[in-house]
């Protein structure tokens, strides 16, 4: 067995991005993945919206098999009466269907403003978070440039950014728009992957983070890779391997070895020990600190803060195999389909989840990949993200059954007869996602992306610059700045921070 100087835990987008960059700079890197295939959380996602352009370019993902089936996917917000709303172009550049004339103009203005704000903030994604202290080597010029660009938007926009930054999506939409389907679609979009309803404070900021992403140079666009998001993970793995990274799947890390108060390697669940002076954890910081490192090697206050890190997943994943194509009252099946009748529907689906219960009418993001590329089994496959789902209900099996029933009822209401087409159904509740993907609480972003857990507070104040609390340990997961999605940004930023050592 060759020796490695760096072990990366987790072959998700961040782990692979970090591994690639480190290996390209000469490190001997071993990536350990618990699952049978690389990709990690990418397999959970439907679409690409924030793949880091630096990662995409340097890792030459196109050359390693990444191709987009659709670089700019349209969305149809479904209405049970067939009077749908279609959003084409990035973030609904063009609207058609159930929308008032007044909202056409209002949305165009709001959309442009949001994209402008997101673009101003986006350079933050490509740097380590600043530290709130003097003389700690903050990139002051870069930070000043971000401030300057925000100010250069003009007094009106600058003031507006300040006004909406920490407000909630519901109020923001309510100020400008009237069409329920449009507001529902946007509220659902903003709430995706989080544990906040549209009326929860601070829902605008995570939305702006989401809108700072891009696909093929188009800000706010949604991309569908050929072969699905799994193909994106596979392309990243292929690229990392080509750069000299050794990738081992079915290798679950049980412990990070700490000796002499520094990291010395890892122990796998089968007892195998692998030594390396540097360990980069690209799995959730909460798991890394509390399970892999264990408390006795860490300061007590840090452990308490890690225990209190909020990681509640609010999304369930539904997979259906259908005998034939469903009919969503005429909606194009190649679109991303949304069930979110209004901003109130989204909020109402969040309410019971706060108390560990299943909503009657969950919102859903539906993809039918087989509408783009036929499956070898000749059947149709429907995949849906259903929000919200409780992450810790009293009775998990009952909640899972209730959630499946609620999802099927929602589908039936929008695509009559779909129930009869179902050959097999599988639903993953947040706790199932936790078990399968190792994400604490089934939280997509490996830790909730909300303002109190962002930037220099992500994952925790003091360890937000990717350097872990023990010499030799680095944190490089979506639980770090800038957060989740399938971006590779955190891993890439972490590798840059390691080079600066």
């Amino acid at each position, binding site marked *: 067995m060759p020796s490695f100087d760096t072990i990366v835990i987790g072959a998700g987008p961040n782990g692979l991005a970090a591994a690639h960059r480190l290996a390209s700079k000469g490190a001997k890197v071993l990536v350990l993945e618990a699952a049978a295939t690389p990709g990690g959380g990418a397999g959970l996602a439907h679409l690409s919206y924030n793949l880091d352009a630096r990662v995409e370019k340097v890792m030459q993902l196109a050359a390693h098999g990444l191709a987009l089936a659709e670089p700019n996917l349209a969305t149809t917000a479904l209405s049970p009466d067939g009077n749908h709303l279609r959003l084409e172009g990035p973030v609904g550049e063009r609207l058609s269907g159930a929308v008032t004339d007044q909202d056409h103009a209002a949305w165009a203005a709001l959309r442009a403003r949001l994209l402008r704000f997101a673009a101003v903030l986006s350079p933050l994604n490509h740097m380590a978070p600043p530290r709130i202290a003097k003389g700690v080597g903050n990139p002051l010029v870069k930070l000043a440039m971000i401030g300057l660009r925000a100010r250069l938007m003009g007094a009106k926009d600058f003031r507006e950014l300040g006004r909406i930054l920490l407000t909630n999506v519901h109020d923001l939409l309510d100020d400008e728009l009237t069409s329920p389907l449009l507001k529902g679609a946007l509220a659902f979009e903003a709430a995706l992957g989080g544990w906040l309803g549209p009326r929860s404070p601070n829902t605008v900021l995570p939305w702006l983070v989401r809108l700072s992403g891009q696909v093929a140079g188009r800000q706010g666009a949604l991309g569908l890779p050929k072969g699905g998001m799994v193909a994106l993970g596979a392309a990243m793995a292929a690229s990392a391997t080509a750069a000299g990274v050794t990738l081992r799947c079915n290798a679950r890390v049980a412990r990070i070895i700490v000796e002499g*108060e520094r990291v010395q390697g890892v122990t796998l669940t089968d007892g195998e020990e692998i030594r390396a002076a540097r360990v980069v954890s690209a799995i959730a910081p909460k798991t890394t600190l509390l399970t892999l490192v264990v408390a006795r*090697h*860490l*300061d*007590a*206050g*840090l*452990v308490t803060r890690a225990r209190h890190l909020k990681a509640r997943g609010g999304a369930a994943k539904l997979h259906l195999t259908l005998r034939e194509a469903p009919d969503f009252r005429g909606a194009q099946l190649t679109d991303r389909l949304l069930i979110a009748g209004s901003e109130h529907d989204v909020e109402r689906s969040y309410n019971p989840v706060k108390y560990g219960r299943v909503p009657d009418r969950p919102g859903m993001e539906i993809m039918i990949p087989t509408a783009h590329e036929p499956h070898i089994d000749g059947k149709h496959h429907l995949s849906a993200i259903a929000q919200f789902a409780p992450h810790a209900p009293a009775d998990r099996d009952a909640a899972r059954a209730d959630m499946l029933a609620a999802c099927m009822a929602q589908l039936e209401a929008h695509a009559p007869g779909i129930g009869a087409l179902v050959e097999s159904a599988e639903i993953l509740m947040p706790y199932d996602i936790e078990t399968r993907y190792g994400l604490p609480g089934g939280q997509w972003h490996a830790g909730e992306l909300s303002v109190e857990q962002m930037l220099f507070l992500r994952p925790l104040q003091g360890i937000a610059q990717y350097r872990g609390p023990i010499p030799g340990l680095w944190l490089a997961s979506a639980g770090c700045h800038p957060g989740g999605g399938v971006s590779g940004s955190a891993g890439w930023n972490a590798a840059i921070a390691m080079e600066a050592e």
Partner: protein
Amino acid sequence: MTALRHFETPLFKTPFHPRTEAANKLWAWGNWGGYTTALAYQDEALEYSAIRNSATVYDLCPMIKYRVEGPDAAAYLNRLTLRNVAKLTVGGVQYTAWVNDAGHLLDDGTLFRLAPERFRICCQERHLNWLEDSAFGFDVTITEETEEIAALSLQGPTSAEILRLAGFAIDGLKPFRMAEFSLGKGRLMISRTGFTGDLGYELWTTPDQALGLWDLLFQAGALHGLRPIGSSTLNMARLEAGLIITGYDFTPADTCVREDRLRSPLEMGLGWMIDWDKGHFTGKAALAAQRDHGTRWSFVGLEIEGNISAEGAILYHRQKTEVGVVTGAIWSPILKKNIAMAQILTKYAAGGDIWAEIYALRELHYEKLMMPARVVDRPFFTHDRRRATPPGRF
């Protein structure tokens, strides 16, 4: 509805209260951690004299006590505290301290190893939340046992003789060791520890044995000058011994509001406690950085000219630049010196041209004094009889 009348008597009484109440001729009471405690009993001069010349008892019940037990107890305490708990054998006592992640002092206290996997922490402030938080990942149980234990401090040159007369064979007991005895229908643990810098013991039993213990001691001590003392007198003795009190000499980090008032053990003269080689403990990285970069503050003993206590005095360099503050001071009767302990900027901690600005209230007017202060080693007072084993028969 008696349950709703608790506010009329907000202070607890210690198990010794029937005796301390009877002895408290001055009716001078104070609130110590929510308990009614005697500030002085009869005559402070006689109480002080008894500490240095005969023997005294001091009601220790309000000290906060936690029991730490379980297979990981030693590992847990090694991560919690500054000293090396592995070096503490069963029957031993460690004076130690603990800090938060930033290396700021939370408290100091004594750690008793009662059994291989059972310890007692005895300290000034309440820390259950910190101790519980620190227990995550360790197989230990933390129990607050303040009210389960009645404790008396028996200090002074004749304290050993009084224990002998009371029937306890303590001749072999060395400083910072403890031994168990039977007492009435209960048990008594005697540790050779104290807060006076003199020969002395601390006695730990259950509340039901408290009054019996008090009576036994006063019976045995009748001809050995035993008297109860209050907090005022104890404060004099502890200052002579150069010992600090949490909340007086530094503000504990968990209640400290002002960022610049936080103090580390290195700044409070407790750096000697830190075992840098024992492995990780909470606050180690922060303390190592401070050790390497130097501290801003230091803690020193001072001898100040004159005989006016410098309590609360501001320290100046060259009578001009403010460089520190006195946290505790007395005119020491045994040393015949004006002594003080102070937080001082490290830059000036070596001494030289340091002055104490003392405001002495004299018949409603302040006399402002600027007195030279000399930095001296602590303790100001100690005595060979403190360590002699077996202790002398005074």
